[in-house]
């Protein structure tokens, strides 16, 4: 699975309150959640994000609350994947569960700048920065998670899977 997109670059410890503040947790409509993404942390994101764009963080991306609103708010804006040195575990599960690839990619933060175009082989484990030619390898996702992503998330996956 190869995807291309432009980078939105953030730092360490991007918590779920930054991605979507607690006062919007009462929302249940994904489109409404999408409107609130990075509302205070980076208002320019919502204005500039394009379908297929890639969010890049450093360490501990998605720490804090268990709210699934956070990855939903990202996919609702067309974000195709999140790349980071490391993820907080609940965000990581939530992202995969809704069909958003969350890929642990050592060195990614220093290898890209905002706006760079990346080509990512999600299953092969290769990121190519088309802006500067740099190439990074990462450990591909386990087969089970790839199946969940290919199904479009855990809900459609389980809908077709008796064994669980």
């Amino acid at each position, binding site marked *: 699975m190869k995807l291309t997109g432009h980078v939105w670059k953030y730092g360490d410890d991007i918590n779920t*309150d930054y991605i979507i503040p607690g006062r919007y947790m*009462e929302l249940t409509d994904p489109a409404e959640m999408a409107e609130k993404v990075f509302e205070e942390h980076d208002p320019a994101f919502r204005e500039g994000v394009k379908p297929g764009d890639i969010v890049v963080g450093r360490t501990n991306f998605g720490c804090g609350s268990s709210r699934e609103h956070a990855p939903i708010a990202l996919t609702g804006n067309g974000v195709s994947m999140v790349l980071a040195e490391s993820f907080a575990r609940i965000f990581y599960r939530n992202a995969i569960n*809704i069909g958003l690839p969350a890929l642990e990619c050592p060195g990614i933060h220093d290898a890209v700048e905002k706006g760079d175009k990346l080509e990512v082989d999600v299953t092969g484990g290769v990121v190519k920065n088309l802006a500067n030619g740099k190439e990074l390898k990462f450990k591909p996702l386990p087969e089970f998670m790839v199946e969940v992503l290919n199904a479009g998330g855990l*809900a459609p996956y389980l809908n077709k899977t008796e064994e669980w």
Partner: protein
Amino acid sequence: MSTISELILARASGQESTNAGDFIKAEVDVALNHDVTSVLAFEAMREMGADRVWDPDKVIMILDHVAPPSSVNAARVHNVIRNFIREQDMKNFFDVNSGVCHQVLPEHGFVKPGMVVIGADSHTCTHGAFGAFATGVGSTDMGAVLARGKTWLKVPETIKVNVNGKMGNHVHPKDVILAIAKEIGVSGATYMSLEYHGDVVRNMTIAGRMTLCNMAIEMGGKAGLCETDDKLYKWLDQRTSGPYEEVMADEDATYKSVLNLDMTGKEPQIACPHNVDNVRPVSELNKVKINQAFIGSCTNGRLEDMKQAHEVLKGKTIHPDVRVLIVPASRAIMKQAITEGIITDFIDAGATVSNPSCAACFGGHIGLLGPGEKGIATSNRNFRGRQGSPDAEVYLSSAAVAAASALTGYITHPEAAQ
């Protein structure tokens, strides 16, 4: 041999033993849900092809985050949940004013040693204080639990935390966990469990152990766990009935790392903005003026915390520049605090006392901070914007420090406020 997590997850997955790194499917004993994550979980359950929850007696629902509702949308969400409860014949429903889910669950005897508790809330790790493997998940994972009664887990590595030494006056379990967070850092326990051992933990109240386990997630932890003992069985006996499984790590268990913490001579600890590991002893803070003190939450809203605050506030008057919000973590705690005269003294001191709920902790309900304001809070997160404006600052402390700071108007050692 096995850590507590490896032991519990072996039983839950029907195996003789498990090792850190194993992927397992665990049977879930308790599924914890609350008002702001569950509607998405119901939708996920239905998308998975299930019309009914796998076992209505094992699903607990608590309305605590936006309770009572502070917006039309929250009121609508509560009604979606009430309809689901009726449709699914679920008995274990705790409506507005019952309290915070992590307090209500054990108080009503739902948590026992050795269980697997999965909650659609990051602070589900609180229940490790009862010797249960308890962890937070998102709504789709919860949907899978509701549909199938199982979840997949990677058996976590464990950091062993030994807490020993003599706790000084005005030093409380919150100071212990903040001192631990300073050492481990906000991502130092990612994907791992924390096991709390040592004399300080053994001598701690159950409320204190809940505070330790509650904040495992603030270091990225999957679970926080304490061994079981007679003190716990006595606590449980007042709320449920045995026999209880004894949950102890094997002496030769393999740990990822060991942290030894000596509390002797430690002062009250403060987590400064905007990360939970930005921890300093209170004496290092230079008269940080505050506009609000919040005493409550699943971290520190228990009777023990109410008493710490009461010790400081009784017969005194809150500083005119500070608003104080005190929110007991459950109805039982609120009633007991009323019976003991604590609430009257809070009100006489000038505090606002509100109904059991999450309140100011997550910034979605009452008690928000405005731009440029500073707040001290007994809750668990001080992220920028967590309790209102992104231009506000949140400091985390024990109830004793929060109460002392409410009297002086700046962050204060409880000793100095007396």
